[in-house]
């Protein structure tokens, strides 16, 4: 019965995390969209995050039932070479904004559970460093979409 107790405990913890009011409450998400690529190719997720709180908040990633894997990534072009790197977190300053946009920070969405097509709404749970999460609906756009008003990519040190 040890097993059942452990499960109950884990369920309780999961519940506590879900209910947790924290960073997620201070953050407003806009311009959330996904660039959909054909087949099961990984897609890029983009969103603008405004922190209305007095404390900085850090985005650590996202989860979704629509994709088996989601990673926070950063693209850079230095010395004429494009590369992509995983990042642990993206800080959103107090009363500031962080932009995930093409050519910079993005959520890499992998292994779709079912085909995501342009026009679909896909919900992602954005995860913050204090354990809170924010559900955001992302609009799936076609591969050759230029973006959602294409805000300038955030340039940061890493």
């Amino acid at each position: 019965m040890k097993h059942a107790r452990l499960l109950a405990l884990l369920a309780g913890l999961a519940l506590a995390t879900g209910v947790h009011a924290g960073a997620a409450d201070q953050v407003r998400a806009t311009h959330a969209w996904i660039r959909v690529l054909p087949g099961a190719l990984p897609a890029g997720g983009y969103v603008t995050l405004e922190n209305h709180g007095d404390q900085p908040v850090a985005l650590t990633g996202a989860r979704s039932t629509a994709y088996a894997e989601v990673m926070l990534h950063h693209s850079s072009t230095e010395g004429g070479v494009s590369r992509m790197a995983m990042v642990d977190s993206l800080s959103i300053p107090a009363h500031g904004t962080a932009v995930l946009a093409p050519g910079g920070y993005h959520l890499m969405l992998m292994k779709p559970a079912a085909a995501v097509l342009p026009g679909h709404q896909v919900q992602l749970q954005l995860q913050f460093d204090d354990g809170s999460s924010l559900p955001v609906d992302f609009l799936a756009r076609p591969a050759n979409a230029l973006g959602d008003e294409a805000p300038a990519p955030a340039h940061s040190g890493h």
Partner: protein
Amino acid sequence: MKSPRTRLAALLALLVAGVLLAGCHGATSLPFRLTDLTGHMPQLEFNLTSDENKPVSAADYRGKVVLLFFGYTHCPDVCPLTMAQLHVVMNKLGAQADGARILFVSVDPTRDTPAVLHGYVNAFDKRAVGLTGTPRAVEALVKRYRSAFTREPSGKDGNYEVSHSSAIYVFDRDGNPRVLYTPADKQDDLVHDLQLLLDQGEPT
């Protein structure tokens, strides 16, 4: 009387001059806004497989202005952004765009089969062609234009990224390299330079 050897040398010199002139014929100086590559790099040459699973070479694209771009389909951010921008450029060219082709060369031929590439390039622009081939054939083309790519170490799930040059090489209708477009350049400058090349008309 000249010796046969002298005559042969003269003939060869004439031939060489002819070849040089022919080479210059398609590469008359144009007022480009982007970095001018004219005369600095070799003519377009490759033997690869198209997204329609057909063997193709550079000769198949003579008569077209070619935009050569190295990328891979498992790149969710920068490659689709570049392809989406090139689609905008093609649209700005209007009917003239039919004289141009975007050649998307995969630097990840292991995963990028012709079928994967076919769906990919057509999601961006109907004038885009996906090219793949043996790692050796791809590398030969990459090296020909002093470009580079590096496969990054695989993650725990076997997934991996490929770092690659972000530049786009533009060739005239005769396959001569003419300008280089980088993400730092203005999109309208690319449109301008492509118009110059497309105005040159079909090669004689």
